[in-house]
């Protein structure tokens, strides 16, 4: 009995230590407006209109490494609205990750078109993919001066 309690106490201690020491992650999929620097500069095509009213054009965010692979997100904006999102580049280390990403990307696209921003919920079971998608998308939107 004493040993069970000892083990239980140690388990709780280990759990708390890891959770507390972990750099806190913001709930939700809200990426920082300025992505973590480095990487190739985002490519912009079309007229960039960093003004109020309506940004237009399309841009591709920087490639994000999300552990299972890398992806970048390309976004088209017209009249202040996100009209299309796609993933021109997707490389995964492993074919299982590839098949997950292929399932998830259309769902993320749908979320972005609905939310009209990079502030999306993400898809469960694909936390890292969703995060990388949101970051790359935010980078592209920033270069377009969107919002």
């Amino acid at each position, binding site marked *: 009995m004493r040993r069970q309690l000892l083990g239980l106490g140690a388990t709780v201690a280990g759990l708390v230590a890891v*959770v507390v020491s972990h750099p806190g992650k913001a709930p939700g999929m809200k990426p920082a407006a300025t992505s973590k620097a480095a990487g190739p500069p985002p490519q912009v095509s079309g007229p960039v209109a960093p003004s109020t009213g309506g940004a237009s054009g399309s841009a591709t965010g920087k490639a994000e490494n999300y552990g299972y692979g890398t992806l970048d997100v390309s976004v088209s904006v017209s009249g202040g609205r996100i009209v299309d999102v796609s993933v021109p580049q997707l490389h995964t280390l492993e074919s299982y990750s590839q098949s997950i990403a292929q399932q998830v990307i259309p769902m993320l696209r749908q979320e972005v078109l609905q939310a009209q921003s990079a502030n999306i919920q993400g898809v469960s*079971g694909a936390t890292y993919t969703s995060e990388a998608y949101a970051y790359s998308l935010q980078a592209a939107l920033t270069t377009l001066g969107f919002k």
Partner: protein
Amino acid sequence: MLSRPGIPPHPWVVDVAVVVVGIGLGAAVGSTVTTETRSQLSQPGGPEIFLGSLSGMAGTYLALVMLLLVSRVPPVERVLGQDGLLRWHRRLAPWPLGLIGAHAVLLILGYALAAHIGVVHEASAMATSSATMLAATVAVIVMIAIGVASIHQIRRRMRRETWWLLHLFMYLALALAFAHEVVLGPSFVAHPLARILWSVAWVAVAALVAVYRIGMPLVRTLRHRLQVQEVRPEAPGIVSVILSGRHLERLAVSGGQFFEWRFLTRGMWWQAHPFTLSARPSPPYVRLTVKAVGDFTDAVGRLEPGTKVAIEGPYGAFTVHAWRRSRVALLAGGIGVTAVRSLLEDLPLRSQPIVLLRATSAEELVLDDEIAELARVRRGRVERILGPRHQVSMEREIVKHIPHFRTRDFFICGPEGFVNECRRAMASLSVPKDAVHHEVYRL
């Protein structure tokens, strides 16, 4: 001078080990918790996937702990003993198996819900999408098969040898599952430190298994080159096997310990069975005494002189080192007499041991002349308790034959029923728990 094993580590080593293992479990679970975001828990399949990751992590961690338990690394072995190891093994085993099974089910369900596709479709997509997932699928099927075979009612119908062989596949399953953990596990992807720690832990435990389950037995087998010298009948169905070997003075073994024996003949070489030494080695000979209860033990009685023998061990914590109080009593049921016989040899002169030998009839008493002589030299005495089980109360016999039973250590060895009866008697006589040392013979 014969070599003797070192003094076993103090029981507080177990407490420290429990704390370390607990912290590790907490950290493993915690590392999964931190990979999850709150918003995803509210998504379709979110809770299932989160719980699936958690149970996979916890289950695999517990599997690692079990692997350490079966590695026979000496400190663990000496503190827990055979009885303790088996008890822990049985108590723990359902957890990793259940959690890993839940891991597979929950993740299939979760991903199916997230992708809005059928469970069967999702399961087959998962299993076949990559090499690591295919390996993991094979692993979980093997684990579930072993888990099912372990259910008491099913296991009872299997031969011990089949069961043992099936068990070996657990090593394969754990190895197959490893790749998908570090390549796909959310706690390890993008967390290189966690990945390194996890890999190091598994490699280290695997190395311990290789050294202590394979390396050391091989070294000892080759050093001592044991072979059957003589097979001598002791009683109906009970034989002593006398082996001869080299350098037996270097074999560090205590009375009451056992080896896993592997007789290298056709049909027997592939299985090892535990038998206690029925006497401390007297170079160039060692002796074990075996009761015929199955195919294997039957075959032991027909061993030809010259048969080569491989050993694993010595194992067991049923030794004189456990003795703490001033007096001592030894209780042997049936073939449990072998451990008591060799343990008696380790007791000092003037230790005045009281030995109770329990058997159904006089002809089932084996080695009792030797025991009487060893006890006499130590100024102790031997009581023989005969009769069918329903007519004999061990509690009454203990009260009758053993004075000062509150200042004594008790060493009990025999079949499970006998050991349990004696332990119950000890409890009702208020003998302190740490004064009772026991070893069960599982037939």
